């Protein structure tokens, strides 16, 4: 197994770890953090695929690499939006959790954030 394959397995594991954190952790900030872990795991797997496509004197396939650069910037834009929404929620309600306290049916089917 070469180094790239190890990094690929690492990326796959990060997707699982991030997904677990996203589902388990009730704190929205931690969900945003976990979602970034999932994203970086996917990017890493993409990078391993790019590395395997090394040809024409390049260390890796530049097309997936450029796509990952775009993806990192878009992930940042989404994170910035999510953080702003969370801070606004905290400002408006004084709480920072996703339990819908109004109707009391937080366990309901459509209480997903």
């Amino acid at each position, binding site marked *: 197994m070469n180094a790239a394959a190890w990094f690929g397995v690492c990326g796959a594991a990060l997707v699982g770890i991030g997904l677990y954190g996203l589902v388990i952790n009730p704190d929205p900030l931690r969900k945003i953090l*976990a979602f970034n872990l999932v994203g970086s795991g996917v990017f890493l797997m993409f990078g391993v695929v790019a590395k395997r496509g090394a040809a024409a004197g390049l260390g890796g396939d530049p097309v997936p690499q450029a796509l990952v650069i775009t993806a990192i910037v878009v992930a940042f834009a989404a994170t910035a939006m999510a953080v702003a929404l969370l801070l606004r929620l905290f400002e408006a309600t004084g709480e920072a959790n996703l339990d819908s306290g109004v109707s009391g049916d937080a366990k309901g089917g459509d209480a997903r954030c």
Partner: protein
Amino acid sequence: MTTSLALDIGLAGLILAIGIWTVFARDSLAAVIGFVGYGLLLAIIWVRLSAPDVALTEAAIGSGMTGMLLLGAAARLRPAGNQSTRTSLGGRFAIGVLCGMISAGLAIAILFPPESIPSLAPTVMQNLAPSGLGNPVAGVLFVFRALDTLLEKVVLILALLGVWSLATDRAWGGVPGLRIYLEPSNTLTFLAQLLPPVGVVVGVYMCWVGANVPGGAFQGGTVLAAMWLLVMIAGLRNVPRIDGFWLRFLLVIGPVIFLAIGLAGFVLADSFLAYPAGYAKPLIVAVEVALTLSIAVTLGMLGAGPPERSRHS
């Protein structure tokens, strides 16, 4: 060879350990600090994967800018504590098993690649010469997939509009309340005076050389944004009002020039976002310079958050 393989495996193990830490740490602030270190180590992995352009982006945006936003949020949400209920042990076990299965499936897909691995690298290198660029990644970003890059820039501006729209009615058009609360300190002021001259040179350099070697508009723009934020956090310069003319001009100048050159492609070349033969490189450098300015201002304002103080106060 074996030494470098051992180092790579150690790096992967360290990344996994920090990833687990950010999920399980009790304190949010500690988890976010772990995430910043995680991003920097990830940048080293990108270098090991022969992708220095991605490494620069990950270090600057994935770790630096995201880390700054999350640190500010964690500090601000600290008084909220955590009143939510936790998942039961059985539920956690079931979710853990399912997530493990997803990881295992992905790992199998990575470990057993197809016989012939597809690659666009030869095609990129064949078509790169007419554009005059030396960096194949910049070639993909600004020649072959220029529409992606244009739309990515638009996404950043949409995110900024989204963040601004969370302002209260009273604060609209006002000044962002930079969401970092610090006591004024001599160290911060000193660093905010010492680093920006160096950082601005580094940012401009990264933008300028991006056409030929790793670097480019996004990485350079991020470094400039970081310097601007440092100066604003230290209080050496005021945060601008969001309805200022120059602020909005700088926000859109990059995409506008990019779009104008793209539309000119209909007339001067054969299609949208195509460059006329012989002029590709000067046009791309012009787009990169304008994009760098816009990215720096957009990221800086995203870091500063929605307006909080009304323009009259």
